[in-house]
């Protein structure tokens, strides 16, 4: 190791002597001059971290045509080589000023301004000497590779903890989601990676009204791809409530989640989305659970009707709306999807009947009252009968030992 460090110093001396001898007006070092030292894989700083710049990687990079000193501008006029270990921070904004401006508005830039040392800067996502154009399949920011790039922080529990990233390990969730699998497993170009929903340089918090993932903006963000679904959602009762400013009205992510979006035909998802409906529609969920549909669903089976099977998913309308699948005119058709031969009489069944509601379901109310008293009466009478008999029989056995 010390031999290598010695070699490095010797090379550095040679370069600097040549530079000093060759000119009076300072000529900036050419890339080859830099690489004389920086291409040696063994060369290190005083603290033994490598200083190597892979010439091939640089040649293949977007910046191959540029000079080292174009970025490392503090070396332009330096005469004394080897230069100090610590160089001025490269200012990408010298060229990429618009990206830089967006970055400062974004969540990463804000974190850096507030003294954060972990938030991503240009190089964390783009790399350094090997920066490639995003369109290049080997680029860190290429569509296929981006989830992995973001995951270096957002999938790293240590960074998540130290950076107080409240959303947690979203990379893991995304990895197993329908979008993550579409990209990472199926290599689909159309599936969204991180930036498609969050933006790139100007990523905003979801609490920021200008963020693409701000609550009210989510339908439009998802609608960039799911156009038809957005149209249907937009017509429905949930979008209407949301537009009125009702913060409880669900947007896409409330039912589908943000990062852990699943296929909608899995049992797990269908059961979970039904529970999700119940977080707002508490009463409807309670009465649903008193029916055969609700009981089978609660046992963990999806074969019978749950919320979306009758009410629809994205284009839910109030029952009074003729477009609603549960409007009186369409009930026979809706119930008939499962119940062959459903009739006008059949659909008088109340799938949300409430045994406690005399006004809504009087027959059920009185049947429940009757059954309650019957059970109470029978068990009270025979309970007493049994207890009395038991004590008497025990005493009788003691009196006449066999």
């Amino acid at each position, binding site marked *: 190791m010390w031999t290598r460090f010695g070699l490095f110093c010797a090379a550095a001396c040679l370069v600097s002597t040549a530079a000093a001898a060759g000119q009076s007006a300072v000529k900036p070092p050419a890339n080859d001059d830099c690489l004389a030292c920086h291409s040696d894989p063994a060369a290190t700083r005083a603290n033994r971290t490598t200083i190597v710049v892979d010439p091939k990687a640089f040649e293949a990079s977007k910046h191959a045509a540029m000079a080292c000193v174009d970025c490392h501008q503090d070396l332009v006029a330096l005469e004394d080589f080897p230069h100090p270990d610590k160089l001025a921070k490269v200012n990408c904004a010298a060229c990429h000023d618009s990206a830089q401006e967006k970055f400062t508005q974004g969540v990463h830039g804000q974190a850096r301004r507030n003294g954060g040392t972990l938030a991503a800067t240009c190089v964390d996502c783009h790399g350094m000497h090997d920066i490639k154009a995003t369109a290049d399949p080997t680029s860190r920011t290429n569509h296929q590779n981006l989830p992995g790039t973001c995951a270096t922080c957002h999938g790293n529990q240590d960074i998540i903890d130290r950076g107080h990233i409240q959303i947690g390990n979203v990379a893991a969730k995304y990895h197993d989601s329908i979008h993550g699998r579409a990209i990472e497993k199926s290599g689909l170009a159309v599936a969204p990676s991180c930036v498609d929903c969050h933006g790139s340089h100007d990523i905003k918090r979801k609490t920021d009204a200008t963020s693409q993932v701000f609550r009210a903006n989510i339908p439009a963000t998802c609608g960039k791809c799911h156009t038809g679904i957005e149209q249907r959602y937009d017509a429905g009762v949930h979008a209407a409530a949301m537009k009125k400013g009702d913060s409880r009205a669900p947007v896409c992510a409330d039912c589908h989640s943000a990062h852990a979006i699943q296929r909608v035909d899995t049992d797990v998802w269908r059961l979970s989305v039904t529970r999700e409906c119940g977080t707002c529609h508490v009463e409807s969920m309670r009465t649903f659970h008193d029916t055969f549909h609700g009981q089978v*669903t609660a046992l963990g089976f999806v074969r019978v009707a749950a919320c979306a099977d009758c009410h629809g998913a994205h284009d839910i309308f109030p029952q009074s709306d003729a477009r609603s699948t549960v409007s009186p005119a369409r009930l026979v058709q809706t119930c008939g999807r499962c119940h062959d031969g*459903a009739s006008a*009489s059949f*659909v008088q069944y109340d799938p949300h009947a409430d045994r406690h509601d005399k006004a809504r379901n009087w027959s059920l109310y009185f049947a429940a009252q009757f059954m309650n008293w*019957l059970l109470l009466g*029978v068990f009270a009478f*025979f309970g007493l009968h049994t207890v009395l008999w038991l004590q008497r029989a025990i005493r009788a056995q003691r009196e006449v030992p066999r």
Partner: protein
Amino acid sequence: MTLYRRFDAFDRGLHVALMVSFLGLAVSGLPLLFSESVWASRAAHALGGFQAAGMIHRISAVILIGVFLAHLGRVGKRLVIDRDFGVLWGPASMTPQPRDLRDLFNHMSWFLGLGPRPRFDRYTYWEKFDYMAVFWGMGIIGGSGLMLWFPTLFARVVPGWVFNVATLIHGEEALLAVGFIFTVHFFNTHMRPGKFPMDAVIFTGRLTEDELREERADEYDRLRAEGRLEQLAVGPAPAWVLPLARIVAVVVLTVGFAVVALIVLTLLNAPS
């Protein structure tokens, strides 16, 4: 010791079929009633899913309806062909009679130490209650169950809200039946001191002379007076009957008490 015939092979067979189908119905139906409990979900999955459970439930229902019809057919035969109207009234009838109210009162008096233990005839009032409860249950649970099995068919004659009522009473009546059989019937017939752990008469069909004289004194005296007692004397049951009956009883009692324990625990834990 002399043994006397109490139940013939046909009735014993019906009771076994009744017992098996009742257990099948209870085990496959109760998970629905307690669907929000973890044990219910596990049970439903263990049975092979709700469709398999539904199949068990329907097969058991058909067996139970068969048992019911077979019994009705037998009663009908005794009325129409044998002209045996003692089925309808009198000491050998299952029909509740004024004597049963007296027996109940006297039995309760004995419980409280206020009188002697009453004498009983062939069928006691609690046995008649068990028996009549099956008729009530068959009407209520069987009727509502058939409606829920073929809802679109029944909707031709009844309005749809009837299925709401049918769902409710099917479940509540099932709770009543299961709760009653697995506690009161088990105690009255099998578990009470003097019988514990089981009364094998429903499996062997045979009573000892002591049992008949002590527990059904009026029947014993009546049969002797009519000179029919000796006609009822039988040899011992085949050797395999009693061990098998004991095994079956242990299994059924265990399942029954487990079910009751789960129901009670669930009801106690339920938010009011």
